[in-house]
């Protein structure tokens, strides 16, 4: 079947099997490998993207469900050469080690801040229950998200 959507600001369409997950289409059919798959039970959050501005686990959505939607992946977050404030905060605060969970963490964090401009440490930690990191112990991720939120507030 055919799916058409707006991906990182540009219209695209792809011919896919009905059972294709959104993350599979992004990675395998469209070559956007920044969105990762870390589990098969919708727990880890490595696959978080934005669908119509909200964070979604792209392993838990069939690709055709995104037909007509606006999808943003980690590749579409920076504004040209300029990093998004949240990306910059992750680098500044050493909020990543192996980098595998990072795209999902950043996409999830951006959505948090869009809903809560100044999240407390507890609010950040509660929000991240759907994003698992095995490397950082979360300390620097929490720090980075709060700093990223401050930068987004301007």
């Amino acid at each position, binding site marked *: 079947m055919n799916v058409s959507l707006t991906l990182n600001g540009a219209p695209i369409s792809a011919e896919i099997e009905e059972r294709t997950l959104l993350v599979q289409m992004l990675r395998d059919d469209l070559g956007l490998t920044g969105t990762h*798959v*870390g589990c098969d039970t919708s*727990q880890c959050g490595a696959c978080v993207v934005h669908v119509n501005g909200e964070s979604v686990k792209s392993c838990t959505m069939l690709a055709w469900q995104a037909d007509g939607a606006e999808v943003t992946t980690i*590749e579409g977050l920076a504004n040209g050469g300029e*990093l998004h404030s949240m990306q910059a905060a992750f680098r500044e605060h050493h909020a990543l080690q192996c980098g595998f969970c990072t795209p999902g963490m950043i996409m999830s964090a951006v959505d948090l801040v869009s809903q809560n401009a100044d999240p407390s440490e507890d609010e950040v930690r509660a929000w991240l229950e759907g994003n698992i990191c095995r490397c950082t112990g979360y300390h620097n991720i*929490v720090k980075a998200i709060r700093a990223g939120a401050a930068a987004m507030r301007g």
Partner: protein
Amino acid sequence: MNEKGIGAAVRRVEDQRFITGAGNYVDDVNLPGQLFAAFVRSPHAHADLASVSTTAAAAAPGVRAVLTGADVAADGVGGMPVGWGITQPDGSPMIEPPWPIIATDRVRFVGELVAVVIADSRNAAMDAAELVEVDYASLPAVVATATAAADDAPQIWDEAPGNTCFVWEIGESAPVDEAVSQAAHVTRVELVNNRLIPNAMEPRSAIASFAPATGDLTLHCTAQAPHAVRLLIGAFVLQQPEHKFRVISPDVGGGFGSKIYPYAEYAVICWAARRMGATIKWTATRSEAFVSDAHGRDHVTTADLAMDADGRFLAFRVHTTANMGAYLSAFAPLIPTYLYATLFAGQYTTPQIFCQVRAVFTNTTPVDAYRGAGRPEATYLLERIIEKAAYEIGLDPVELRRRNFIAPDAFPYQTPVALLYDSGDYAKTMDKALEAADVAGYAARKASSQSAGKLRGIGYSLPIEATGAAPSAIAGQLGARAGLWESAELRFNATGSVTVFSGAHSHGQGHATTFAQIVSDKLGIPFENIEIVEGDTANGQMGMGTFGSRSLSVGGSAIVKAADKIIDKGKKIAAHLMEAAAEDIEFEDGNFTVAGSDKAVNIAEVAFAAYVPHNYPLEELEPGLSEQAFFDPMNFNFPYAAYVCEVEVDPRTGITDVVKFTCVDDVGNIINPLIVDGQVHGGVVQGIGQALLENGVYDNEGQLLSGSFMDYTMPRADNVPSFLTDVTETPCPFNPLGVKGCGEIGAIGSPPAVINAVINALSPFGVTDIEMPATPERVWSAMQSGQAEAAE
């Protein structure tokens, strides 16, 4: 000072690609014409394979091949190799049963490979795998560590009576028994070190590609040690010569030990690719990872600590049963032996130590090194028994430790269990931690918790570990079947930039940053002009890889040695350029100068002259500026720490919150404090996970009950606090950087700190022991049985 040199908190250069989605992990790689593999795995823990029928699967759409253990056997492919041998007390070798890369006549754990389907797409391969018909005749399974060697346990291997792989001892039992029997006080613990499942966030993945015209085999895989994978799979499984076998590991999404080993899946797709002249890709699902990545820990231990009337340690006696799983993973025998019992001196002067380990086979996933590997098990035991002893004899646990510390002037210190400690000032580090943790203010915090209806507890842990594997000669005497040096090539390019090839392989540790800091510092060239290259056996050095917190102390030291060689050669070139004698040339901050003059040439000019040798001493010196070095350390190094943990337990629910955790680590000199902090945070949380959340649980039939993220409790952000971290810096004298490993100390040190704090919180209920993970159910039950006892 060089702003991006040694000691600076340089932001990581690798982050740009990771934060923009431009990382390059194996599953992100797609090669032309690639086929896909899907594995059929045993759903039984122990069964005879009556038949494996591939007919229906082979006829499914898009299927290119369905291969079984019979095909493996027919092709004469070898089994999985073991990289470390253990000698038993009677001089006999350990039992080393065969592990075919696909099962032939019997399966011995859930998840063992039974067949592989190769097809045009991932979906086609997975669909067809469902069509492979396997007739299993199930057998009784052996699961529990403690009873695996019992007389009535089913036998897994004919050659291993009592399911015993080996018995291993260190120390003298008779004098330790005597000391224990005569001591003023003996504290005993019986404990379990729970099985853990590593769960690096990137599942393992591989692409094997064979070029029939040249005979070249290329394997992309998620490896911490690409050269080791090449050697072990090439030489021992496939008989594929090293020079015709290239292993590439691009970005690796975490490992924690689990990506060291030459897994059967890699061997199978390499063999299939060679057989078919094809390119074959496979990526594990998380469910596959749970049953096939080597697990960690899984010990059952009884120990006695003997003390005199003043609390001075006299002897320590340990009996441990260690679970190996169904087969021996590559380094499994090393973990509960030399990486375990050699740490039983801890930071203390215990004069006599004896440990006996029985390694047993069970119908479970093989167990191998997982972050810390043996050292967390040792530290948990020692720091638990010391804290228990302190409360038994009515002494502050801090004071008991202080009475037994190895003194700062006693180094190098020979322990009774083989190791020669390098350096340390344990009291200084502990005192810094006590102050940072505001232990003086603990009573007030406890009162405040109490008024909120919570039980508060405080616990301590003073870990030490041996990192920087390894002095090859010593390792060889102890059973290693490989050398354990590391290597580096430091290659100047003609225009003055530098490419550094290292045999280590970062999978989150930040080598691209820290190694460049070292080179920038040593050679005085801009940090931005340095590139670190790792992870490709055809594009760099021979290497041993990254594990056991070795990359900086061993691999970084190789880089320093290569830099020294660059400077030596550079002096000769500079002497020619400045018409001076080589012995008069000095090097500092990137410039060669003639002593006592204002003549100078920059190292970039020297590099240019070396590659464009128009004015160059060609009769005496080769052109080019590229040097290679190997570093084999004379000793391990011994990072240590002092951790203080405070927990709050909700007595109504048994839920434990880690509310305050203070770490003071001594990892010797520090190259990048940001990265050291990050390593400590991550390690401590893995330890908190072991203490409170994580558990690899099998039922009696050998089914893994905790086989997904819905069942195996990974630490989430809201399970852990932010941390207070600080350091003391006692340089290691056994490497040129003075560094000690920092990758594992957090995971080693934190479990006993947490459990000691939980027990302390529950002490009003008479609780003196609790098992990991201290789940709400266990905590609540411990309180109830404590209350019941108190009432009786």
